[in-house]
């Protein structure tokens, strides 16, 4: 790891915050994709079996 100088805390804090939010965004987005896709699949299957 390189030496980040006297303000290392701020640099690390900034990168961590951006990292957490970005990863969080990706995680939420991907989980929504799969959740809605599953929901649609389930409903479509129900519709087919019902009809």
């Amino acid at each position, binding site marked *: 790891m390189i030496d*980040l*100088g006297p303000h290392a805390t*701020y640099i690390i804090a*900034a990168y961590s915050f*951006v990292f957490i939010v970005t990863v969080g965004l990706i995680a939420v*987005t*991907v989980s*929504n*994709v799969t959740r809605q896709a599953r929901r*649609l699949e389930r409903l479509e299957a129900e519709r087919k079996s019902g009809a």
Partner: protein
Amino acid sequence: MTDQGETISTNWFSQLAHPGFFMRWSAYLIWPLALISAVLFAVGLWFALFHSPADYQMGETVRIMYVHVPNAWLSQFCYGIMAVSAVGTLVWRHPMADVSMKAAAPLGAAFTAMALVSGALWGRPTWGTFWEWDGRMTSTLILFLIYLGLIALWRTFEDQLRAAKVVAVLTLVGAVNIPIIKFSVDWWNTLHQPSTFFRADGPKAPASIITPLLTMTLAFTVLFLLLHVLRMRTEVTKRKADRLEHLKIARQQKAS
């Protein structure tokens, strides 16, 4: 009963004709975008953290800029996308425009929040304070409030298509206002303190700063596009599923 089924299916085909097309072509975008974004992030972070010198003025804190500036740019880029989508909703009545607008708003708020927090963390070592009422940070904060307002307005509506049109009107009103806000805040800023701050994207920035900055900006932008497409696809899927659920409830009511 079969008759009923027929009318229902024709309905939804005509309704989803456009979204169906979108779902087909956008499927080819996801992995390339993800790959490009990942590579850009890898290269950008390597430059930003290891392969760029400390600035002679700001020292190591210049590295915060590499995450701050891309987010600040995206906070505005996202509003641009929303404004175009708003015109699409109201004028061209394109069926994907409101999906795009709905998908963009929370992303815009998130990127604006990242710009604000990284800006504050950059400001503390550079200016000696977390929050400086300088023109740019103030405008960004106001933009954040506007994003919150848009999201709040959207969430109070139950009917998504009606919400889209109303939110589109507000988005455009905001788009007209943002330059006025920017201008007024800059004027207010010069009034209260002479502007002597370091300008991050000034023309004198050396190449050692430009390379990581550009790479990171591209990386974040591609990531934004990827997330936007994914969220749009989710919304289309969700609406299809909602519709099936309504039909199911209607069937059950009929049966009982």
